């Protein structure tokens, strides 16, 4: 007698169409059909997966996070980071040292030989070197600090040359300060020092404190003083305010602080008419426009008084 729970003696042969139909067949433990319904969990997971934000997070956010975390952890090691930086530096140096980027010559154009030497001295480039190592902007700034340089362009030319183009300042005046003699350009900026006045006899001489600040005015006065150019010794700045025109025989023309050129022109006109400056005069004082004043030399004064019949008592005091 077989127990009721024993294996079936005959293999159940499921009717093919009955399987196709979907009715649950009770009492057939062997033919237990799989439940087509998703479990609650599977259903929720599928819905979650269909949520756009979740999809983006899973597909982009999580991989990006994992990747960045891995990279950060890998870079957390100091030695490794240093090795990477060293490698990068090595590559950089290798590229910079290629002959295409090498600078062989320093070409300076538009500079006098002494300025040329000064610039070469100042830059002190150890050629040949890589163009990446040359800081053009700094070089330009340093060259521009030279007094004799008005404008400068620095560029790396294609042929491996560092081209420095210089515009020099043109000396227009000589300024005496005590023992020193400086060359000034027309704006009054100091250019260079000269040792003796004889080095530049062609340039007018200035003296006095603050003369460089009024260099333009001085040049105008010198130009206006053309008729007495042969006698002109120089200009003296008085009190950083006005000019004295010094002629030979120690004659001085004291110009006013305002409109000195016009005052000078008036004097020169007077001179042309009356031959004033050739007389024995020490000083022409033009400071007061209404009342130009002359100071005669002592002999001339005595002579004039005698001629006028005036007797003066003089003593040695």
């Amino acid at each position, binding site marked *: 007698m077989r127990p009721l729970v024993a294996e079936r003696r005959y293999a159940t042969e499921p*009717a093919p169409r009955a399987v196709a139909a*979907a009715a649950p*067949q009770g009492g057939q433990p062997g033919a237990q059909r799989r439940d087509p319904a998703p479990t609650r969990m*599977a259903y929720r997971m*599928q819905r979650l997966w269909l949520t756009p934000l979740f999809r983006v997070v899973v597909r982009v956010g999580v991989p990006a996070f994992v990747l960045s975390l891995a990279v950060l952890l890998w870079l957390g090691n100091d030695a490794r980071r240093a090795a990477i930086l060293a490698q990068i530096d090595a590559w950089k140096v290798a590229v910079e040292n290629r002959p295409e980027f090498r600078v062989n010559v320093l070409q300076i154009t538009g500079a006098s030989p002494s300025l040329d030497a000064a610039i070469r001295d100042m830059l002190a480039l150890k050629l040949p070197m890589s163009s990446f190592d040359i800081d053009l902007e700094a070089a330009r700034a340093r060259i521009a600090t030279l007094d004799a340089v008005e404008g400068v362009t620095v560029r790396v030319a294609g042929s491996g040359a560092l081209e420095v183009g210089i515009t020099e300042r043109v000396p227009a005046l000589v300024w005496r300060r005590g023992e020193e003699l400086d060359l000034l350009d027309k704006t009054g900026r100091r250019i260079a020092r000269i040792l003796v006045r004889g080095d530049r006899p062609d340039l007018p001489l200035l003296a006095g404190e603050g003369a460089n600040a009024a260099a333009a005015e001085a040049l105008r006065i010198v130009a206006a003083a053309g008729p007495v150019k042969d006698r002109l010794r120089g200009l003296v700045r008085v009190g950083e305010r006005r000019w004295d025109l010094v002629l030979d025989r120690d004659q001085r023309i004291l110009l006013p602080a305002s409109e000195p050129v016009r005052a000078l022109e008036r004097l020169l006109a007077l001179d042309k008419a009356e031959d004033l400056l050739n007389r024995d005069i020490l000083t022409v004082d033009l400071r007061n426009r209404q009342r130009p004043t002359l100071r005669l030399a002592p002999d001339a004064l005595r002579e004039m008084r005698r001629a006028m019949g005036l007797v003066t008592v003089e003593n040695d005091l």
Partner: protein
Amino acid sequence: MTDLYQSQRAMRNMRRAAMQRGVVAILDIGSSKIACLVLRFDGPERRRETDGVGSMAGQSQFRIIGAATTRSRGVRFGEIHAMSETERAIRTAVQAAQKMANVRVDHVIACFAGAEPRSYGLAGEIELQDSVVTEQDVARVLASCDMPDIGQGREVLHAQPVNFALDHRSGLGDPRGQIGNRLACDMHLLSVEASVVQNLFYCIKRCDLELAGIASSAYVSGISSLVEDEQELGAACIDMGGGATGLSIFIKKHMIYADSVRMGGDHITLDISKGLQVPMAVAERIKTKHGGVHATSMDDREMIEMGGDSGDWEKDSRRVSRTELIGIMRPRVEEILEEARARLDAAGFDHLPSQQIVLTGGASQIPGLDTLATRILGQRVRLGRPLRIQGLPQAVTGPAFSSSVGLCLFATSPQDEWWDFDIPTEKYPARSLKRAFKWFKDNW
């Protein structure tokens, strides 16, 4: 009553939210199958200036991007019978549809056939305060309809204004802006068992979905299978489902009556199963493959293999002639149709100007049903199939899916219901604004 009003309003808002999001699911919970369609709205709903349906019968705004059908479990007579089984079946259908659509759906609009729908005709009438009809007046006239005694434990499923009359002019579709003195309205109210609706709510909530609307399946299959002139002139739709047969009568494009017969295709299968002593699955197969309602002499010679795996050779190798099968099926089909006839007569269907009857639903595919129905229901019977809508898979175009398709149409352009109108201002609880003012005056 207000509870339901609020919940229906909430569902309407949910539906609006779903439309805004662009995706909504349709769930047809039937006794023999559960169908889930996923609709995608292409643009905002545009109201046409003129009356009538838009291009492609107003369906150009949406298309179906996911469709799935699963065998229903735990549903009997169109009502949820075993909650967890139904929940699983809904999950199956929704998951498959979501997978096809590749979109997550959160809002679902459902329909069901059972729950003993009962129709009531309501009438209301008000004097207009102002001679021009405003929205408030429409709300007031709807609120003035007397609520019939729908019975304990029943809820209102549909409450649709079907007709407005202004003074002596009746048949107005939209009385707003018109001038008159008395505004009257007729409303059709469909009540169902509350417990069934609650079960449905609960079941759908357990699937992590939100219900954005519910409808009676008789109503929605009428929407999809009656053509426009039938809806206009008067017609009845008989949706022969698995567990229940729904009836709906339409006139002037409004449903005026709905009912359901608690018999359907499953009962025919059960009869075959009982009569031929075969399992239900076999009976279902025999019914769909060889079923019919008109026996001819040819059918005597057509023998049907029944099969089976009882182990008894005699029993498993039985054969039955098709005539016998028809002899089993026909009385049940006749019974269903006669019951439907009785319901239609009770509703006064024979007073309608046009008495077109459209048979649809899965059980209407029995060969020869239209001839049999003609004898019982009258001459003007036709078999109906649902409208074609964009993106509908071929497998879902049969008459068994007329309520699914109708539900799509219902979801996209629902009929105005009572809860789409605002509560008339005087019904607001004790004038809350005024009370707030009073509180400020008293306390400050």
